[in-house]
């Protein structure tokens, strides 16, 4: 009998360790999310640009080089807006802050809050593309029929690899899921 008890004790020791490993790996699955974001942030992989305004020291401009920046505006499926850049491309000096406007118009009959998600292509350029001012840092609300100019101020870092001479900045406006939820809970409360 003591043999059996000893066996049971040893078994439960291993079981506990393995259960711990299971819980750890479940947590690790979740930890992959912030790890992934940090990894993308550091390396600039995946075309992800920072969602914070950058503070950049002025004057350190590379006057020997032009970089073409192209602009794209997209709308997610269920987004009843019109959205486009005011100009489709411009030439900039690396290191020099430039400003351009996007124009958005709400063509639906109700007020809508949107989130703009930026992406830079090629992905390797993301690390060298900083924004000091952007409508994508906050949510944007447009009333029905309202049209608004949305500015972006950006700087292409002068360390941008030489072989990249065109950078594409793309925004996709999404119908903000959070705002939608708040609104529906408000309307629920009204009822």
């Amino acid at each position: 009998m003591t043999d059996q008890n000893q066996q049971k004790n040893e078994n439960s020791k291993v079981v506990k360790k393995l259960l711990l490993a299971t819980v750890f790996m479940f947590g690790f699955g979740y930890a992959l999310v912030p790890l992934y974001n940090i990894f993308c942030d550091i390396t600039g992989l995946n075309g992800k640009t920072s969602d914070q305004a950058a503070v950049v020291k002025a004057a350190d401009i590379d006057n020997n080089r032009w970089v073409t920046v192209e602009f794209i505006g997209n709308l997610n499926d269920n987004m009843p807006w019109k959205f486009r850049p005011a100009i489709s491309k411009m030439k900039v000096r690396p290191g020099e802050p430039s400003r351009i406007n996007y124009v958005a118009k709400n063509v639906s009959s109700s007020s809508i809050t949107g989130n703009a998600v930026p992406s830079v292509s090629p992905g390797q350029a993301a690390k060298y593309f900083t924004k000091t001012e952007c409508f994508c840092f906050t949510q944007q609300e447009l009333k029905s029929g309202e049209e608004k100019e949305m500015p972006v101020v950006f700087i292409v870092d002068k360390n941008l690899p030489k072989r990249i001479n065109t950078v594409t900045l793309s925004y996709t406006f999404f119908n903000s899921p959070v705002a939608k939820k708040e609104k529906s809970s408000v309307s629920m409360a009204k009822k």
Partner: protein
Amino acid sequence: MSDDHHDHKPTGLGRWLFSTNHKDIGTMYLWFSFIMLFIGGGMAMIIRAELYQPGMQLVDPDFFNQMTTLHGLIMVFGVIMPAFVGFANWLVPMMIGAPDMALPRMNNMSFWILPFAFGTLLSTLFMEGSAPNFGWTFYAPLSTTYGPASTDYFIFGVHLMGISSIMGSINVIVTILNMRAPGMTLMKMPIFVWTWLITAFLLIAVMPVLAGVVTMMLTDRNFGTSFFEAAGGGDPVMFQHVFWFFGHPEVYIMILPSFGIISQIIPTFARKKLFGYSSMVYATASIAILSFIVWAHHMYTVGMPLAGELFFMLATMLIAVPTGVKVFNWTATMWKGSLTFETPMLFSVAFIILFTIGGFSGLMMSITPVDFQYHDTYFIVAHFHYVLVTGALFAIFAGAYYWLPKWTGNMYDETLGKVHFWISLVSVNVLFFPMHFLGLAGMPRRIPDYALQFTDFNQMASIGAFVFGGIQLLFLYIVIKCIRGGEKATDQVWEGAEGLEFEQLPSPAPFHSFTQAPEVK
């Protein structure tokens, strides 16, 4: 304790429902897997029937997508994995000289979760809207934003499968670590036990990650989180990273136990010791470790930077080395052996050759630049069916023929077994080989219709599929016939068989075995 009633063998439904006997639970796992094989196989028949001709023939595209999705999920989680757990239940205690699994009640629970998991999954077919239709890889946002309502049932089903596999693996590990007969050191264990030990660790490492990823899907769908939704700051590409972090070790979970089975069978019919036992163990472990650092080779086309692609390409190619060691060892075991070709041996030799073909097409796809051409075409379909059907499934057939006489006490019908083998061998190649050409010519996977120039190869594949599917009914007949009677098997069953289950137990193996631990020299 129930151990006091040694000769009492429970009867009726209760024997199965409340079973804590490793042999009964193993049997249930194997039958469950067999039933699922016919359900998943039926879906494959619908897919191949639709693809017999270009144009829309039998089913609408949405139903076609449901078929490809459920076929994949059922074959992976419902056929291959439970079949191997069934083998583990039957064989691990007998091979290491243990009376039963270490945790018999948990064993019962991990089996009985499965019918509920797959009941939930299959019930989605009858739900309003549609069953899951986004492919077995359930990429976001197809499965989150655009997934049908039934996706939540799919998620629940995956959770249940995960719990079942994790409990099963904990049981296997505890059994192997704590219940070995005196003298059975780790490096004396049969290779099958080794491969399962490593597989069980892989399962514990990655099934929780799968559970995590489907939980994220669940909260994205229902509770307003944005793990994979770009609008809320999430990233759908991250889904692929997390999924394949689970998914790549998963494919080794499906192949390592079959390496173990083949390594048991080849020495028996070559009448030689396994060549390079310890290198087999180390190769298996290396494959398992490498499987954690190669996941992104499934996603070369998502737009990774060059450095990432190079890393995953080289790491993937590295896996060919330990796999090559295994194939070399099997071949060297057969070299100058006194070979005979009974059905298990036939399936094993076919496994070595066809699995190697599948391995080579895998190597082709590990090369990033050419993968851009093969990605999401029928070439990848050909590749993973070579490794999973002529690999894992053939190993399961081989193992079933090899141990059936030990399990039932009767020899199976050798003539019918050979018929089953030869027709399977020819038809499976008619089924999957043309898919290589279809893929290279550019036919995408997961489509119900295709351009006219693909017709001939698709018709070949479909005919092969109908024959291969049909001949499995013969296998069912052979198994039933063997259970019901036939020529009595000797205790050793095969002339060259070694190992505790053949040397120290009678055929059929008694309900309770090794209540006294055997001596292992």
